[in-house]
């Protein structure tokens, strides 16, 4: 339409002639848009990646057998209670991976513990031997959904990626001769990588003592600054055979990534799938994860709001200055017959253009800012997300239009009579 063309000419030329003024408006928008883009990108990325970060601090669920207390004696007369030693069946482990939130179960490792002795004669030392999984193929016998992978590779490496290991991890799930030992064990027993040693397990059967022994070679030395430093780790089957407890385990440590999902749901579902176990959250870490993520998100939201307010104030100042500078022009337009809506659309179009340009540039700068925040705060790179572009532009245009309400009202209130008055 010819009219639209004229409107575009007036709009375009008025903007080109006032580049520096418009630039100030655009820069104001960039401030808010880049902060919004940066924090949105960081927030989207981090809520995915931070879960993994937190997981580094260890398993967040511990599965143990239910410790049923069996009452002994007559009703009302208590003689005390006996806690039966109980185990979890290794054959039930796959069920942990068949809960509704199964994809959030990142890994698990079973443990069978036994105090064993190492060395000969007077040098004999008692050490905790832990049988567990290292990269074990767990077969999911009845997957939750037919699309699920029927194989799940997991083990201690998955749930404890932060361990410092000298030497190597045990990689073969059928390896019966390798051991990884804690740094303190290595120090007390003077063991180095490649050294062999023998563990002894004494089983008391009445008066007789049945001793079983097993030869192991050190392949890796672990340093965690935790109780693991005092333990010897071997494949689960080694521990089971040594202690004559085939198919049995004491505990399972589960690493669950939990941002949107309630950790109680994990607990309940695992307990439902394996009725004789009890799942506990470890040190409430899972809920702490959610808490910290929530707080980070709130903080980012607040910063974004502050940034957008700064933008709005900047645009408002620009627009008011523009209206004041162009008072005569507005009066002239009115005096030659421009209706208020024409004046309104001229200024709102200008605000929209400021918003769009600011939104696009703000996105680009925001992505750079996101990298900076990612590296300095979370030590990770932030993936640029294209879905943030329309959000950035939308927010920018919205802020620019909102900030223009007052200036536009001022433009509308300009009296055409001013055109006949002196300067």
């Amino acid at each position: 339409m010819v009219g639209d063309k004229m409107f575009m000419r007036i709009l375009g030329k008025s903007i080109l002639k006032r580049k520096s003024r418009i630039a100030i408006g655009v820069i104001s928008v960039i401030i808010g848009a880049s902060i919004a883009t940066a924090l949105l990108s960081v927030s989207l990325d981090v809520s995915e990646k931070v879960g993994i970060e937190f997981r580094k601090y260890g398993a967040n669920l511990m599965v143990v057998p239910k410790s049923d207390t069996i009452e002994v004696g007559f009703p009302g007369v208590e003689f005390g209670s006996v806690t039966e030693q109980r185990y979890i069946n290794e054959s039930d482990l796959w069920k942990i991976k068949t809960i509704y939130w199964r994809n959030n179960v990142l890994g698990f490792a079973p443990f069978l513990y036994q105090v064993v002795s190492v060395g000969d004669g007077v040098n004999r030392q008692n050490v905790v031997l832990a049988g567990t999984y290292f990269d074990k193929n767990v077969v999911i016998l009845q997957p939750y959904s037919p699309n699920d992978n029927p194989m799940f590779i997991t083990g201690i490496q998955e749930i404890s990626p932060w361990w410092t290991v000298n030497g190597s991890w045990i990689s073969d799930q059928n390896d019966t001769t390798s051991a990884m030992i804690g740094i303190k064990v290595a120090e007390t027993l003077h063991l180095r990588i490649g050294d062999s040693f023998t563990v002894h397990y004494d089983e008391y059967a009445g008066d007789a003592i049945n001793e079983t022994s097993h030869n192991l070679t050190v392949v890796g030395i672990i340093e965690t600054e935790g109780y693991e430093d005092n333990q010897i780790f071997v494949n689960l089957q080694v521990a089971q055979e040594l202690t004559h407890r085939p198919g049995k385990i004491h505990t399972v440590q589960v690493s669950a990534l939990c941002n949107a999902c309630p950790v109680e749901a994990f607990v309940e579902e695992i307990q439902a799938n394996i009725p004789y176990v009890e799942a506990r959250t470890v040190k409430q870490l899972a809920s702490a994860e959610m808490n910290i993520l929530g707080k980070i998100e709130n903080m980012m939201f607040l910063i974004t709001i502050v940034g957008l307010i700064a933008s709005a104030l900047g645009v408002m100042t620009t627009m008011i200055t523009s209206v004041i500078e162009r008072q005569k022009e507005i009066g002239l337009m009115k005096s030659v017959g421009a209706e208020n809506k024409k004046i309104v659309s001229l200024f709102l179009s200008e605000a929209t253009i400021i918003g769009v340009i600011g939104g696009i540039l703000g996105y680009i700068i925001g992505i750079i800012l996101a990298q900076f925040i990612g590296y300095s705060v979370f030590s990770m790179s932030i993936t640029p997300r294209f879905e943030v572009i329309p959000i950035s532009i939308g927010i920018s245009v919205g802020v620019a239009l909102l900030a223009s309400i007052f200036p536009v009202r001022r433009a509308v209130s300009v009296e055409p009579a001013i055109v006949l008055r002196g300067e």
Partner: protein
Amino acid sequence: MSEEIIRLNSIKKYYDENTRVLEDLNLIINKGAWTSIMGPSGSGKTTLLNIIGCLDSATAGSVSINGTEITKLNQTQLTRFRRENIGLIFQQYHLVPYLTALENVMMAQYYHGVIDEAKAVEALKKVGLGHRLDHVPSHLSGGEQQRVCIARALINEPKILLADEPTGNLDQKNGEIVLDLIRQLHAEGHTIILVTHNSDIAKLGQRIITVIDGKICSDSACTFEINEK
């Protein structure tokens, strides 16, 4: 007896209690007449022109233009009425600085609703600026700017042309050109009201009104009538 086009009835214009600019002003102007308004600075000439030009409203009284009682119109109606009926020529030209001469004229067409580039070119040729179509105001002389202003005032074919000191910022030669144009427009049948401090220019009109302290204190038309008696 020619037909009346403007009728002001006991017009008052108070900006506030202490600024009573127009006081019970009555004025009838006939179609096709050229009326000059004179008077000392601050006497209310521009205020009067604003009211006739529908740029400002009177505090009290009635204003009838071309048979329409404009004091009854709302803002939008007033804007529409103005662009149909009134052409304005300013002492300061008021061209839009970032638009060319042609675009300045076409802008008035745009706000009026019909854009006709050929007609806008024609209007500029008429004021002798056919060779300056694409110049922005800063590349035009004062006289040329004023002629663009006149072309813009004419473009929507208003019946009434209001000019407030149209030659106030111009030298003798450019002033002559502008006055010649106004004379030509008058000859074509436009009703012209021209405010001036210059009595020679005022004499170009058929009627001279002198405003002092917001009242018409002398009116050549009345004198003429008195003389006739």
